[in-house]
């Protein structure tokens, strides 16, 4: 099929789909007038039930906790998938980093400038603290393990920007990242199993809720799960970045 024919088929199909799409949108409540019951309900019972004031985190890590386990494993499997797909093929050599092209000079790119290095190093610490704050404040603030994890992974990528790939690699060897990732994913599941052990249902909030509501140490399992999610997300993203960088800097085709 030539591109022109494909484009015409697409345009016809897309026109039909868009008609249905717009029809569906027209059936939605007017903008700003959604009256679904769950939002109101969750707003009113969350603080009482979980002592968490961040309702979005409470929904993610408590009311929809089981869904979030699945979601976390999507991330886990994607990271493992990247590592698997990008493994060194038979006709490629991994030169162990001995002759790795630092700063990408082998690709004809300019070496990293001093400005980039300095800015990256200056930001590494604050970004790490920011990520830690986000990961540990899911229960009170607009944050949580997913966001905090990505920010902490950014700090580790800044080390690569500010320094050398080899330093980045020493900070995050693949087997260590994979173990940490598994610990994060497993920790979440074990919080749920722990609840089962006390006779409650899976992922029930069995820890003391703490008081007052809205304190950082309140909210029982929500804070704990958020922490485990953070660990998993850091490891997953560092693993992915590591594998992608390895493709550019270390692996060379033998031919």
């Amino acid at each position: 099929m030539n591109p022109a024919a494909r484009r015409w088929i697409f345009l016809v199909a897309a026109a039909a789909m868009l008609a249905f799409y717009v029809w569906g949108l027209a059936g939605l409540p007017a903008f700003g007038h959604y009256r679904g019951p769950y939002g109101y309900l969750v707003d009113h019972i969350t603080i009482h039930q979980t002592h968490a004031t961040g309702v979005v985190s409470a929904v993610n890590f408590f009311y929809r906790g089981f869904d979030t386990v699945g979601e976390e494993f999507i991330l886990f499997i994607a990271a493992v998938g990247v590592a698997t797909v990008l493994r060194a093929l038979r006709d490629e050599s991994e030169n162990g980093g001995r002759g790795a092209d630092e700063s990408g000079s082998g690709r004809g790119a300019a070496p990293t400038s001093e400005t980039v290095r300095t800015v990256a190093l200056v930001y590494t610490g604050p970004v790490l603290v920011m990520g830690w704050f986000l990961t540990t404040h899911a229960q009170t603030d607009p944050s949580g393990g997913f966001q905090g994890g990505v920010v902490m992974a950014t700090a580790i990528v800044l080390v690569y920007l500010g320094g050398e790939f080899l330093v980045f690699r020493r900070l995050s060897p693949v087997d260590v990242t994979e173990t940490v990732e598994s610990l994060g994913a497993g920790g979440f599941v074990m919080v749920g199993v722990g609840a089962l052990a006390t006779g409650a249902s899976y992922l029930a909030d069995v820890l003391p809720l703490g008081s007052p509501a809205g304190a950082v140490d309140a909210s029982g399992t929500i804070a704990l799960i958020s922490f485990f999610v953070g660990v998993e997300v850091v490891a997953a993203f560092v693993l992915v970045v590591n594998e992608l960088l390895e493709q550019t800097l270390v692996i060379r085709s033998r031919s």
Partner: protein
Amino acid sequence: MAWVVACGLYGIVTSRHLVHQIISLIVLQSSTYVLFLSIGFRIGGVAPYFSDIPRDTLTVDPVVQALALTDVVVEAAVTALLLAFAIQAYKRFGTVDPQELRQLRD
């Protein structure tokens, strides 16, 4: 929303570069964030965090916000995996044009 969907779909179908195609998929998926957030918005509502506001304040819907968060995470994971596939496709076939890839397979 409909426009974002249309742009993304058009990009995917007519793409001549795998990375461009993946980015088109991201654009397509972004339309779901807009959909979620516009459904959950309530006029006069504030963010659903009660640390420093009275507990009976009107807020936007927290459930769709949690769903949007899920969406972002899945998108990041899928993008990483697709980019990995793009790298391997380039190594294997020496091209990143999806239309040439299709011809190679025949």
